[in-house]
């Protein structure tokens, strides 16, 4: 016999054939996944093509990129050579986007939880069934409780369109961690003081000195931002880094201020007092453009160099040195506004102090200062305005309870969570979670779990499984940032000192989504159809959505594609021209060192330091930050990135460690002041580069969800140990550096010496 049948031996096969088992009949019912195709000789699809129009979302900096695609397969990501922002560079995370796209753990199909929340059993279901369930459950909530019965937790560029729909539905309570666990105070306090939000638009390359308070550029890698910092150093700018830890930025600094954690506001007030005292602030600017200069002078007078030095536990000479350095180089100094600000629960005031220091140095709208970068603008997509029985703005919890008047957009998460648990002042019974892992973002996880348990319905949409996906009733798989259209990125050349240019890019897919992953426009339109809102759907699909956003620019997806993904035009310098007056969009039209609006709401009208609780005996304050190759928990399952940095070593002072009998590489757990012990462990890193009163770990590790097979239980989750909540009255944002820990090794609790 010519056929070399081995174990699939012909006798067995023959007996089957003879037995007349209706295999072919059974098989015919199912259709086939493989079909005849034109014969293609090997090698003919080996050519790699470059696909443009990508915009990274491994973090939120949105670098422009291109993909090398072979056949259907994305094989490499690179910076878009046309980019005037990140250029051809991508960071480690940007490169590792490929591992996200092709992560076998990723969500692939819509799923229904037929087990319990938190301990799910999944059934793969069709989109039709999934969306029918979502429409039915959300409508039931609306019928019973009104749209206020629905809450939304969201994050990321993909939520633009879904949010517009939730607004149309009249959902009053939405929460985004980008504001409430990150930069909410930075934005709101700057707005309140200066009348604009500088974000991180700080002209570091053209500065003569830079002040970074708790800002560790280089550990948080945002490409053009890091380039700005490094260019500043290269150009001879003197960097001052204020941090309890010898961070990557501190390692590049001319002056490292090893400040006691929680004392940053006092430090800023002390600097201002010294400058006032010596008369070395920018008098002409402050007099002309600031409101409340004299009141501020009086207010900070108590912060003498000696008192500041003693409170901050730093040398008095260092305060003088920093103040002199900044004053001498004003206005060309970069007082960095920072980004993540939710530290101690008194952070609005710290950012106000930062803004005031910037103001009295006149360090804005000029080389080296914070600058108002002039970008192109693009549009929004709105659903039609509809009348709701209850005004969603009035029904928002913070509004109803007249709390947190200086809060960023949305509802403070703990306020929402309290309501989800108590049902007061009204029941919230359905939750939509879109692209955020709120188990990791909100302090006091057991409260979050309690709130989740209380829901009638939970819909979660994400790209990968995360901790919160385990709580979904319906789980929908979203196309990743490399597989969909959405975000419009607008910016300028990265160095403001260079010839002004503006760019605009729209995110375009580099590859088609695999499995049954869908883009958010499709998902929302299909949901809206099922909820009876078909006639109000504003755009048919994601391409139309992006073209709508581009409308006012005269650009389209097709035009951008011809331009290799990026449109560039001449720009405008952000520096004031000679004789041009700065404008401030505050109530008074001036920089409000003294804020009447704050006084009206019974908050300090001048930036004020409030004491932060000290660690109990045997404990050290737990501080956290970023890991340069990770974006919080988002990259916790990325094989390449986890291989580079698999866990978050515990930084502990070397002398303390010696007393505790700890050495580098020891495995330890942490236990907080309330006896909460970390679920997973990490390794010890002993270093003189951290104070004795604190320990440090990078955030985003210690994943709980075993579905994230790469990142599961690697390192310690800092948020798990956040059991103290300290919501500040201005914004409703809780500090997250107000918890204290000690070490557990081999089951033995070890106190941390003071």
């Amino acid at each position: 016999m010519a056929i070399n049948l081995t174990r699939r031996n012909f006798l067995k096969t023959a007996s089957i054939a003879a037995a007349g088992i209706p295999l072919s009949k059974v098989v015919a019912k199912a259709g086939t996944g493989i079909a005849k195709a034109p014969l293609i000789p090997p090698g003919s699809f080996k050519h790699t093509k470059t696909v443009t129009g990508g915009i990274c979302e491994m973090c939120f900096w949105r670098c422009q990129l291109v993909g090398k695609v072979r056949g259907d397969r994305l094989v490499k990501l690179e910076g878009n050579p046309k980019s005037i922002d990140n250029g051809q560079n991508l960071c480690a995370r940007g490169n590792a986007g490929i591992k996200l796209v092709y992560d076998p753990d990723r969500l692939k199909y819509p799923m229904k939880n037929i087990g319990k929340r938190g301990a799910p059993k999944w059934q793969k279901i069709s989109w039709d069934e999934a969306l029918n369930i979502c429409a039915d459950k959300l409508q039931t909530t609306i019928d019973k409780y009104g749209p206020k019965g629905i809450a939304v937790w969201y994050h990321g560029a993909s939520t633009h369109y879904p949010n517009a729909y939730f607004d149309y539905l009249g959902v009053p309570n939405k929460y985004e961690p980008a504001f409430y666990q990150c930069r909410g105070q930075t934005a709101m306090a700057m707005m309140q003081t200066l009348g604009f939000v500088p974000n991180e638009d700080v002209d570091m390359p053209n500065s003569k000195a830079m002040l970074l308070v708790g800002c560790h550029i280089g550990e948080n890698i945002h490409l053009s931002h890091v380039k700005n910092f490094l260019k500043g150093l290269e150009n001879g700018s003197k960097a001052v880094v204020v941090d309890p830890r010898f961070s990557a930025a501190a390692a590049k600094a001319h002056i490292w201020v090893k400040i006691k954690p929680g004392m940053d506001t006092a430090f800023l007030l002390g600097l201002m007092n010294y400058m006032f005292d010596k008369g070395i602030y920018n008098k002409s600017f402050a007099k002309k453009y600031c409101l409340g200069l004299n009141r501020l002078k009086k207010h900070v007078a108590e912060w003498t160099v000696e008192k500041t030095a003693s409170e901050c536990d730093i040398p008095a000479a260092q305060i003088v040195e920093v103040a002199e350095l900044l004053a001498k180089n004003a206005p060309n100094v970069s007082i960095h506004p920072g980004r993540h600000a939710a530290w101690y629960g008194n952070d609005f005031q710290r950012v106000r102090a930062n803004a005031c220091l910037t103001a009295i140095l006149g360090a804005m709208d000029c080389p080296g200062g914070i600058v108002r970068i002039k970008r192109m603008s693009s549009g929004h997509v709105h659903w039609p305005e509809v009348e709701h029985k209850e005004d969603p703005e009035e029904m928002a919890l913070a509004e109803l309870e007249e709390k947190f008047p200086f809060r960023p957009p949305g509802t403070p998460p703990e306020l929402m969570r309290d309501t989800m648990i108590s049902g007061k002042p009204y029941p919230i019974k359905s939750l939509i979670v879109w692209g955020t892992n709120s188990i990791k973002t909100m302090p006091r996880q057991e409260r979050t779990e309690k709130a989740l348990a209380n829901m009638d319905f939970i819909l979660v949409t994400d790209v990968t499984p995360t901790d919160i996906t385990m709580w979904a009733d319906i789980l929908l798989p979203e196309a990743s940032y490399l597989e969909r259209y959405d975000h419009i990125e607008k910016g300028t050349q990265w160095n403001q000192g260079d010839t002004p240019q503006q760019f605009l890019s729209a995110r375009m897919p580099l590859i088609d989504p695999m499995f049954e992953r869908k883009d958010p426009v499709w998902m929302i339109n299909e949901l809206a159809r099922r909820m009876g809102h078909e006639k109000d759907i504003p755009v048919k699909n994601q391409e139309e959505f992006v073209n709508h956003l581009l409308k006012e620019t005269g650009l389209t997806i097709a035009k951008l594609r011809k331009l290799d993904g990026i449109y560039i035009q001449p720009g405008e310098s952000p520096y004031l021209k000679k004789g041009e007056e700065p404008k401030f969009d505050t109530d008074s039209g001036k920089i409000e060192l003294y804020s009447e609006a704050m006084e009206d709401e019974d908050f300090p009208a001048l930036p004020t330091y409030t004491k932060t609780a000290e660690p109990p005996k045997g404990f050290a304050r737990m501080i956290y930050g970023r890991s340069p190759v990770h974006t919080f928990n988002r990259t916790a399952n990325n094989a390449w990135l986890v291989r580079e940095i698999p866990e978050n070593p515990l930084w502990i002072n070397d002398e303390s460690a010696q007393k505790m009998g700890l050495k580098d590489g020891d495995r330890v757990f942490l236990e907080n002041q309330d006896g909460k012990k970390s679920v997973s462990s990490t390794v010890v890193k002993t270093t003189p580069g951290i104070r004795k009163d604190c320990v440090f770990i990078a955030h985003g590790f210690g994943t709980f969800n075993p579905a994230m097979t790469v990142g599961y239980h690697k390192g310690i989750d800092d948020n798990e140990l956040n059991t103290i909540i300290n919501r500040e009255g201005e914004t409703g944002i809780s500090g997250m550096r107000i918890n204290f820990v000690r070490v557990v090794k081999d089951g033995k609790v070890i106190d941390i010496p003071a």
Partner: protein
Amino acid sequence: MKPDTDFNRETSSPSVSTTLADIFAFLALLMRYPEKSFFDDEFLDTLENLLDKLDLEPLRQKISVWRSSVDDQLLDAQVEYTRLFINAAPHLIAPPYGSVYLESERSLQGKSTETTRDFYRRYGFDVVNKAEPADHITLELEFLSCLYRQEEITAAETFVRTLFLPWFEQFYQQLMPELRHPLYEVSIQLISYFVQEDQ
């Protein structure tokens, strides 16, 4: 078409390769997400019948016991399939894609996926749904079925030896400790039965 083998001429039954084509198509179905369209009594009867003819009585019994003890067999199979092969808590047991096992880091759409699809195309086949990686176990088994149907026996042998077995064995090992469900325990053993070399 190649001529029938001598063996086939001696019998009035369908050719060996046609039977193998049917068998592999059936094996492919066993590894497909169970849907109402095909996953019915007739399908399970056929499975039992096949096991019976192969003298794999202990396996047949497992299926039979499972069928009599579970009311909604479709839902039961769907949930287990999802747990083993799609997304699951506590975690996905064994993604059924070749590249996850063949590449240095577990990943979809690896170089080996490209090689696999290349192989399909060289024999005039391609995947219908481009959203699925070409090296899903179901697609590979279907492709083998297509090769047998075209009497490309040598190609099928080569495919099994060079692209299927190298990962199937690791896949099987990874699944083994979790193979509690009779349907999938039997399905995997049956596939193994038809692809493993004689000892």
